[in-house]
């Protein structure tokens, strides 16, 4: 999959209260959540985002609470992909589970500037900075996660037998059984 958009830059340790404050968690309405995305740290963020844009951040992005509202708000705000030096673990798994592509790259946070046009290809593990005419490599998802992403998220990975089917050996067996 490839994603292309302008970069919106954030620093280190962006926490889930920054991404979506707890006072807005009394709803599951994705649009409403999106309208408050990053409100505490950048009031104009939502207005600035155009569909397909990309967040570029420092280390430990998404630290704090387990609220899936955070990646949901980011995705619903129009962000196509989040690149960070690294991610907090619950945010990372939530993003994968809901199908928000996240990319870990150490060098990128320092090289991409605000508003740079960026293209990310998760199949081959390349980030292209169109504005600065540079390319950066990143490690592709492990096969395990690619499976979840290809299935369209975790819930689509649950098979008719009510089991998670993300393990190669098991899914092969099931395919045989289903015929």
């Amino acid at each position, binding site marked *: 999959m490839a994603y292309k958009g302008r970069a919106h830059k954030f620093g280190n340790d962006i926490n889930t209260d920054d991404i979506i404050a707890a006072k807005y968690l009394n709803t599951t309405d994705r649009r409403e959540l999106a309208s408050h995305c990053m409100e*505490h740290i950048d009031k104009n963020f939502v207005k600035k985002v155009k569909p397909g844009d990309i967040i570029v951040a420092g280390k430990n992005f998404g630290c704090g609470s*387990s609220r899936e509202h955070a990646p949901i708000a980011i995705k619903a705000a129009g962000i196509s992909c989040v690149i960070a030096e*690294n991610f907090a673990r619950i945010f990372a798994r*939530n993003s994968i589970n809901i199908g928000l592509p996240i990319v870990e790259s150490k060098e990128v946070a320092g090289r991409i500037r605000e508003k740079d046009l960026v293209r990310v290809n998760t199949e081959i593990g390349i980030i292209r900075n169109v504005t600065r005419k540079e390319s950066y490599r990143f490690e592709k998802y492990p096969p*395990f996660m690619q499976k979840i992403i290809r299935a369209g998220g975790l819930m689509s990975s649950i098979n008719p037998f009510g*089991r998670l089917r*993300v393990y190669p050996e098991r899914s092969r067996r099931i395919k045989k059984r289903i015929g």
Partner: protein
Amino acid sequence: MGYTITEKILSKHTKVKDIRPGVYIDAKVDLCLGNDITAPFAIEEFEKLGSKQVFDKKKVVLVPDHFAPAKDMKSANQCKVLARFAKQYGIKNYFEVGKMGIEHALLPEMGLVLPGDLVIGADSHTCTYGALGAFSTGVGSTDLAAAMATGQCWLKVPESIKFVFYGKLNKWVGGKDLILHTIGNIGVDGARYMAMEFCGETIESLPVDDRFAMCNMAIEAGGKNGIIAPDKITMRYLRSIKNKARPGTGKLYSSDRDAKYASIKEYNARSIEPLVACPHLPSNVKPAKALEKVTIDQVVIGSCTNGRISDLRLAAKILRGKKVRGGVRLIVIPATQKIYLEAVNEGLARIFVEAGGVFSTPTCGPCLGGHMGILAKGEKAIATTNRNFIGRMGNPESEVYLSNPAVAAASAIKGRITHPDEVI
């Protein structure tokens, strides 16, 4: 090669043979948990699957605790989703207001978590139960939905960091200070993706409530789980639970001598004094004594970190016969109904009220800026809670300082951050 306690528990819950850090496993869960904020999303996803039942009615726990008793109409709707789902699917462990408590204090108290369990919860502080020697970790709503349907969860086997504490605790120092010291030392991402294993002579004599406070804040260092090997103190705690939801004392694991660790940190408990995490990160830790010029508007004693009976006893010991300083609001929130009743019966509630504080029904409330004590612009609070991010307790221009219950109670009396020695 030896294994850590975390690796051993994960190994017992999966068919994957080769357990080592970095390996992905599908794990069987013993318990999965959701609250009024995270469960509605999970229920939505679960129902899209069209399953007629959850994988095990006894192993799904739903607790409306964050914005409950419902703070507004939207929150009431969220709580209603939980109540409706629990009824429709016959969920045994749904705790309505009146039986409800803050989830991470409630579950152990009900005997729902045993040593050796694998627990996932759609709440980041699910790591609390490691205090009983269980593997427990926070996940998201979709994970909860998948677990409710399949009884399984995907996990990456984490590396472990061993934290060894030596020596006796100083006066007014508890589990909260040990974990704040640790987070201050390694940073908010110092244990990212890792298991935090606490051990050493200090931990071996540490009461269970302090162990809960320590494991609770493992997430604040980025940890996947916090864990303490079960021992005599754990067993005594488990035996003290009346009408336990599950029989027995679970499975007792401990790390092998030759287990592999990503790193080993050693701390001298004698050199740790009462600590305060300053805005806006839990790692921004300073001694309480160094912050005596910080005036405060509000004090919150409660939460899944420090809302247990021993926390309230400690706060009451300091507040007995004293008054909260004029202009300061003291809000005391017992974590569960059982703790609430104990505090009433022991006369603690009277001490708080006579000191000029409020004594509330259990709720997560102000800890996450939900309700029951939101801060105005420019206000400062000292709280026994777990996070002090920008705007965590209300206005983005307010500030939260984190401490143990003794420091918080003493600060309520002085109206500024205070070492407990100053008031008692």
